[in-house]
């Protein structure tokens, strides 16, 4: 009834190729943006920011990055944790070396440095595919974590080997450290997420996205019709690592404030982000959001339900959490292999006919 193309005439090519061709979708999109930017900053508190919303925003950036590589270009990567660590350590070194520069610039530069490292570790993808590439990126994961643990220069020779974010401000308002207001950290991450999602969405709709998808679907055929595999694969690695690096920088500087590479950026993190992408939906920007929200929100929701409402022992709840999350992952893979994004698409298809399906 409300959700339909009928009556919404497109008279220019720009209108015809817009991201949200349906009017209802467009309005919903602007409403979500307005709510996120104009309402949430006024009602957010420390608990919501640090327990749910910041991790969601940051993991969503990482999931978008990994989705470009795995979902759009078909290059399986298990090095996400390592690349996030590159972003975090690059941000740390930049923050401590140039204290007067704005955090916006540091985070973007951290992303750029990660992109360079990503290209470096993406080079083997030109020769190896599939499982073998997964193993090569796994090597990147272990090498990078080892490097940041081993070379004291990266953590400024601190006694514990940890990196801690010093207090930095943007436009005169603290953005890192304990005194940073929740709304500021939230807005900072939200701006990065919005810009990253817009860039990713438009890249994947453009020529580079098409060449990535061609490589994913059949690399030999893509090469024959004129897609340069070197360029396509390496740009996918670069863009993906850029986003993952940004998320790593935000994860360290805004969200946690102090990290230890072996614990925060271990192989677990790579798997977590990969699960977000798989559960959310491979090759879908919306899926990255949905997967991040699902895997960040579910443990907290289960904890609140089990410990705070039902009053069960914390360890039992923690174990049940593992069982439920694991079970849900398997259930999703069986019932809906294309992830939450596909469920969303099905809903939209149904909505088009609602309330008079023929």
């Amino acid at each position, binding site marked *: 009834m409300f959700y339909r193309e009928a009556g919404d005439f497109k008279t220019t090519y720009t209108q015809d190729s817009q991201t949200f061709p349906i009017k209802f979708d467009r309005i919903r999109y602007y409403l979500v943006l307005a709510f996120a930017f104009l309402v949430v900053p006024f009602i957010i508190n420390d*608990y919501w920011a640090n327990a749910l919303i910041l991790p969601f925003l940051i993991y969503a950036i990482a999931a978008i990055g990994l989705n470009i590589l795995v979902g759009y270009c078909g290059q399986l990567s298990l090095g996400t944790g390592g690349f996030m660590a590159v972003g975090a350590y690059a941000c740390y070194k930049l923050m401590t070396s140039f204290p007067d520069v704005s955090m916006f610039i540091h985070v973007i530069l951290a992303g750029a440095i990660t992109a360079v490292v990503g290209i470096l570790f993406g080079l083997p993808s030109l020769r190896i595919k599939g499982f073998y590439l997964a193993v090569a990126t796994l090597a990147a994961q272990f090498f990078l974590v080892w490097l940041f643990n081993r070379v004291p220069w990266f953590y400024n020779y601190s006694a*514990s*080997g*940890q990196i801690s974010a010093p207090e930095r401000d943007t436009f005169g308002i603290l953005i890192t450290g304990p005194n940073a207001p929740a709304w500021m950290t939230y807005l900072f991450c939200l701006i990065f997420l919005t810009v990253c999602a817009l860039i990713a969405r438009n890249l994947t709709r453009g020529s580079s996205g098409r060449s990535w998808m061609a490589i994913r679907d059949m690399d030999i055929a893509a090469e024959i019709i004129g897609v340069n595999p070197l360029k396509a694969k390496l740009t996918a690695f670069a863009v993906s690592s850029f986003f993952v690096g940004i998320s790593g920088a935000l994860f360290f500087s805004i969200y*946690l404030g102090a990290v*230890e590479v072996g614990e925060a950026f271990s192989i677990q993190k790579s798997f977590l982000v990969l699960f977000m992408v798989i559960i959310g939906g491979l090759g879908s920007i919306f899926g990255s959001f949905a997967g991040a929200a699902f895997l960040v929100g579910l443990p907290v929701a289960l*904890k609140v339900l089990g410990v705070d409402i039902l009053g069960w022992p914390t360890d039992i709840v923690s174990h049940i959490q593992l069982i439920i999350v694991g079970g849900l992952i398997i259930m999703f893979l069986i019932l809906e292999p294309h992830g939450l994004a596909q469920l969303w698409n099905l809903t939209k298809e149904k909505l088009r006919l609602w309330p008079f399906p023929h």
Partner: protein
Amino acid sequence: MKLKLTTLALGAVMAAGPVMADLVFPALSYRTGPYAANGIPFADGYQDYFTLLNERDGGIGGEKIKLMECETGYNTEKGVECYESLKGEGSLVFQPLSTGITYQLIPKMTADGIPMHSMGYGRTSAKNGEVFRGIFNYPANYWDGASAAVNHIMDVDDIKGKTIALVYHNSAYGKEPIRTLEELSKKHDFNLTLIPVDHPGQEQKSQWLQIPPRKA
């Protein structure tokens, strides 16, 4: 001095929250995860002690104690979530029970004015009360431990020219005593071999084999 500070801090918190019916003690425990084997006994002991105080003495100074447990799994992100959810409950003192979470929480708790007690772990330099006003790491810390161990060896035997091997957890938890041992090795003229064990550390054979057997 330190005891006085603690009493002051505790007193201040108690005075600030008379509306609370119970004394809230948060317990950030790790009953799950790779280190659960030593997390469970500690969490049980902490719980048992407060139960004892409640049952035997009727709490502390007539006030009942309410223990609020939160599972961290030795994971920093969960620790942050635990802290944020418990700090609004009128928590008196936090025991993060993980050096990673301790580093994480020191700035936050200093800003929020809640005292932290990290006994025997955490940030050693927090011993300086001039800088870290609400952070307490008695009865001992990493530096004390390293120095006590070396002193003991010197009591038993001559240390000069001998080798001490430190097999440590390759994280903030294990790295803190290294500086002290390095300084002491220069001072007392012994060799120091550093052998890291990576998380989770179930397999340590190769590390221990790096230590040559002592010649009889």
